[in-house]
């Protein structure tokens, strides 16, 4: 079985972004970039399927400018076998990404496609579900457990009320939640090995997809700042303040 994993290059999760003074966007100049944490979990899950002998090949795909190859190499250092880079300098929205991924799915015919549940920059949480609709495949989103059988996959999903389990016919789409696994660290030899793994480049044209955006960003602002309040000396003062000053208890 072939597993396709979609990975996105995003700002490192430890970095607190700042908004540009002209409010056109956030400032990403000289900011540390990384593999989206949910995509890292997706790669780890695929590699574990390979280690268990369920998957034969793990292919990573990323859409974006040349720089995304850095994160694709990271994914290969974690164990993915090869990469497909769909190169574009336009910033595709989730629908365009899903259309491009559909093109890759048609070429590669994977049985399982794993994505992150959410990119931590746009916080969209859309792409896997959109790819499901476009390909007609079933989806198991926000997965905390994935069990692959010969023709089906059982996915335990983290939902607001607790956990839900669904059974999907393959080929299927899974999006990862935080508890699915704990990604490994890439070892130095594996980082070296990853540099020689095959990485093909395609364009949106090759896939017959026009990258367009129908949602325009008019403005990006900093959120209202909360000012730090006061320190209280003890529980008695805290309770007194909550009762008489804040009047919330």
């Amino acid at each position, binding site marked *: 079985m072939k597993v396709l994993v979609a990975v996105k290059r995003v700002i490192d999760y430890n970095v607190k972004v700042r908004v540009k003074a002209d409010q056109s966007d956030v400032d990403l100049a000289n900011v540390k970039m990384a593999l989206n944490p949910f995509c890292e979990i997706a790669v780890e899950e695929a590699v574990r399927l390979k280690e268990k002998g369920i998957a034969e090949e793990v292919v990573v795909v990323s859409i974006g400018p040349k720089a995304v190859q850095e994160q694709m190499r990271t994914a290969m250092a974690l164990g993915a076998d090869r990469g497909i880079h769909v190169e574009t300098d336009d910033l595709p929205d989730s629908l365009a990404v899903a259309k491009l991924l559909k093109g890759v799915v048609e070429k590669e015919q994977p049985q399982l496609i794993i994505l992150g549940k959410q990119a931590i920059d746009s916080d969209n949480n859309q792409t896997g579900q959109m790819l499901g609709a476009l390909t007609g495949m079933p989806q198991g989103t926000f997965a905390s457990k994935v069990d692959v059988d010969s023709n089906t996959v059982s996915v335990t999903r983290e939902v607001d009320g607790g956990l*839900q389990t669904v059974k999907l016919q393959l080929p299927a789409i899974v999006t990862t939640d935080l508890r699915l696994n704990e990604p490994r660290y890439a070892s130095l030899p594996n980082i070296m090995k990853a540099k020689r793994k095959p990485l093909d480049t395609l364009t949106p044209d090759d896939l017959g997809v026009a990258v367009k955006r129908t949602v325009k960003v008019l403005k990006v602002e900093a959120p209202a700042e909360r000012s730090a309040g006061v320190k209280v000396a003890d529980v008695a003062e805290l*309770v007194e303040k909550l009762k008489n000053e804040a009047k919330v208890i």
Partner: protein
Amino acid sequence: MSILVIAEHNNSELNPATLKTLSAAQAIGGDIDVLVAGDGCQAVAEEASKIGGVNKVLCASNAAYGHFLAENLGTLVAELGKGYSHILAPATTTGKNFMPRVAALLDVAQVSDIIAVESADTFKRPIYAGNAIATVQSEDAIKVITVRATAFDAVSAEGGSASVETVDAAHASDKSEFVGEELAQSERPELTAARVVISGGRGMQNGENFHLLEKVADKLGAAVGASRAAVDAGFVPNDYQVGQTGKIVAPELYIAVGISGAIQHLAGMKDSKVIVAINKDEEAPIFQVADYGLVADLFEVLPQLDQSL
């Protein structure tokens, strides 16, 4: 303008997030229809018909929709939604699951998690874990939107008398099947709807110690939440997680106990009205957003708090 709001419910009652989504719909303006899709959900449709300002309720009751599977619900909503200018659903795990399928089937983008309506095509939404707020304008003919419930006041559940129309369409995918669920049973208020939330972090050390929080929660009528670290460590189940990638809460009072205040946690609670932080490290970033900070050992503080309430 005509708006279709997808009700969130459990086949027996409406989830309050629906009333807040309706408030966003009213801010857009226009005729508002509500879709109640589920299995044996007629009582919910009746309940929805009484909400003020609702034009019409569509009730699609079929086994295919009983567990709100995205494949089935997505197809239904895309089909019914074609004639509307806007389709709205709460940004719950159910809404997040099926709405992007609706958008893709209609070949339009989705605007996720809006916190304000500027005009019929312009909305505000948080990005980068709430560290920036984007104002976005959609050119799509049908706007598919999920709504962050905490950012809107609920509309009144009464005062309406909409007609209820039955929808017969049954979309049952044979590719996806519900197997089972483990839903949390709790006497306490639901996290996203509670007036007071008390959350524990890694500082709680283990799941047993959450009893210390629960005692205080019971006195305050509070819901109990947690940081990711506490969930990952297995102290409490996943549905307790508050944050960028967990639940968004904005109660009157939020008490963070043994939580450092990582940006991903703050993203889920910093719109609370009053924030209290209890942490033994006075440098913990949580104090930068707390109205009242208590630098102390939580194992001493929690029993005292329980006593004094």
